[in-house]
């Protein structure tokens, strides 16, 4: 098969990521190092998990706006359970994950059973989770806990001065899991089928409704998981965390070559998209001349470029 943008939109993402990284490596001393690369994973661990969940939603031709709020809700829920309610950490995490799954499944059920637009239902979900977070606590709760300290202490040295922390490891493992899920399981392939053409998928006898509910439940799980990673990263819970995270996640997914029209793309692209995000962020940190505001603008510019390219490719095919 010919290597071309059309046959694999991933090349565009790889190109962007590689050239950004190369330019930065030449421009800034100390950029080209294992330490920086390892930190890319650490810093983007919760965005990474969120974006992987969003990938599955978008592959099924849906959208989930609630993820940022669910992350915020999860952080405060976990912090409250561990700190104020005295629940052991694994149990608190388990509760948070179950809540996330149930919440996602409920939204999915509304979307499927009543044929409502995913956009509106998850918008409702955004408001709901946001408010519920403040019901638990309106201010940040710090987590002081031995178990937490132990988990945060987990590190694998990958080079001189370069460590992969618990968050980064969780992200990488979860990425491998998503890769497997999407490529090797029925659920994964059905997600692609539903996103490709829902009517055809139905005609082919696939369990479209169950898959769609599963997609939102899975994304609820991812959001809760990302929330837990956030508590590890920040050492506290705060209902304000995660605001706007859905946007970053969607942007990372699209930059990773997954089509917003569903059915095409995958976890690898999203990993690259998330790393691109992290590289830009790191460049901004390295270079004082750029203001933090540039992050958003750079991401939007990339987004624009990718969407227009996708559109042009789709039109070329028509």
């Amino acid at each position, binding site marked *: 098969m010919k290597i071309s943008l059309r046959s694999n939109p991933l090349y565009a993402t790889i190109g962007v990521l590689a050239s950004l990284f190369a330019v930065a490596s030449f421009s800034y001393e100390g950029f080209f190092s294992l330490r920086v690369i390892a930190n890319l994973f650490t810093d983007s661990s919760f965005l990474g998990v969120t974006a992987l969940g969003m990938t599955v939603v978008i592959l099924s031709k849906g959208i989930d706006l609630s993820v940022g709020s669910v992350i915020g809700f999860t952080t405060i829920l976990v912090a409250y359970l561990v700190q104020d309610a005295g629940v052991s950490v694994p149990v608190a995490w388990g509760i948070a994950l179950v809540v996330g799954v149930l919440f996602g499944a409920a939204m999915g059920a509304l979307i499927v059973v009543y044929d409502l637009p995913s956009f509106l239902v998850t918008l409702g979900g955004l408001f709901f989770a946001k408010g519920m977070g403040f*019901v638990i606590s309106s201010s940040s709760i710090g987590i002081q806990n031995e178990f937490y300290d132990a988990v945060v202490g987990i590190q694998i040295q990958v080079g001189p001065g370069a460590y992969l922390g618990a968050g980064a490891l969780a992200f990488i493992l979860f990425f491998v899991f998503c890769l497997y899920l999407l490529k090797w399981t029925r659920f994964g392939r059905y997600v692609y089928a539903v996103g490709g053409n829902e009517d055809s998928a139905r005609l082919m006898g696939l369990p479209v409704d169950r898959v769609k509910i599963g997609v939102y439940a899975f994304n609820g799980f991812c959001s809760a998981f990302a929330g837990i990673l956030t508590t590890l990263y920040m050492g506290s819970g705060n209902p304000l965390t995660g605001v706007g995270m859905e946007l970053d996640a969607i942007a990372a997914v699209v930059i990773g070559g997954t089509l917003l029209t569903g059915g095409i793309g995958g976890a690898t692209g999203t990993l690259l998209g998330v790393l691109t995000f992290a590289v830009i962020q790191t460049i901004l940190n390295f270079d004082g001349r750029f203001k933090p505001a540039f992050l958003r603008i750079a991401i939007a510019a990339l987004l624009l470029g990718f969407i227009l390219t996708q559109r042009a490719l789709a039109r070329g095919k028509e």
Partner: protein
Amino acid sequence: MSKAMEATVSKKSLRDNPLVWPLAGLALVVAFNLVTGPEFFSVSVRDGHLYGNLVDIFSQGARVMLLALGMTLVIATGGVDLSVGAVMAIGGALCATLVTQLGYGLYLALPLTLLMAGALGFFNGAMVVAGRIQPIIATLILMVAGRGVALLITDSDVVKIQDPAFLYLGKGYILGVPFSLWLVAAVFTVMALLIRKTALGLLIEAVGDNEHASRFSGIEAGRLKLIVYAVCGALAGMAGVLDAASVSAADPMRVGELKELDAIFAVVIGGTALTGGRFLLFGSILGAILLQALTLTLYNAGVPAAVAPVPKAIVIVGVCLLQSDRFRKQISNIIKIGGKAS
């Protein structure tokens, strides 16, 4: 307005009237307040200005009303504009910077700001029309970029506003009524006239109802959409200016945050379907009022402002369900069964 009134009068079945839902919602809120604390409705006059919860609902709701007016048109064409919150931030930041940092008079700064915001809206429209990109995706780009642009304009600072003319936009009163309300009233009147006295409204509805057929009827859907997105952008810019004026500062991070969702909410509650077609400007105003009344009522009832999104969520999902055929059928079945049992 005339259209809304006419609809109320001429329709035989009340249930079919899309204004019923926001009105019923408002009635509920009013009833709740009558029971829990009638002082909610007290309006007093201080320094020749009206004060009280009712006034607050309107003056604080003014920004969402402006957004909702623009959003109504966009949704009527079958689209949606996610970028209005970001454009608000740009509008507030630009106008404040022009006036405070660069010493422009408001008479120049305001039109420039509106022009810029309109241009941003036009850009959204061009993406949808010429790029043939789904509206959610096309406007997502500006939603992501907008806050960054606002930060660049203000150099990442919060711009304090001292210019009295600027502050008047947010804090001034005319005949005891907040200026922002006059502005909304004026915008609404102009839009309602433009839309209903010309054929623009009907053509927009036709495009949203069946875009394919509109082409066969010789309607230039693309041109209409460009106009509509530009208007939505300009109104968002104006809302941003009002926001900045009301708190005497333009904060590029906070202005307009999640306001796109409030606007969409107001429009949907106001009886305009997200699928496009028939729209009700007045319904969207009612939706915005309902939203603000709900927030204020909860606040007065001791519910922290931060928790207010929960009832908001319940209302929006509830309205979605009411518009779903399947849900209606289920409900009417339950009622039937209940009727038989008794």
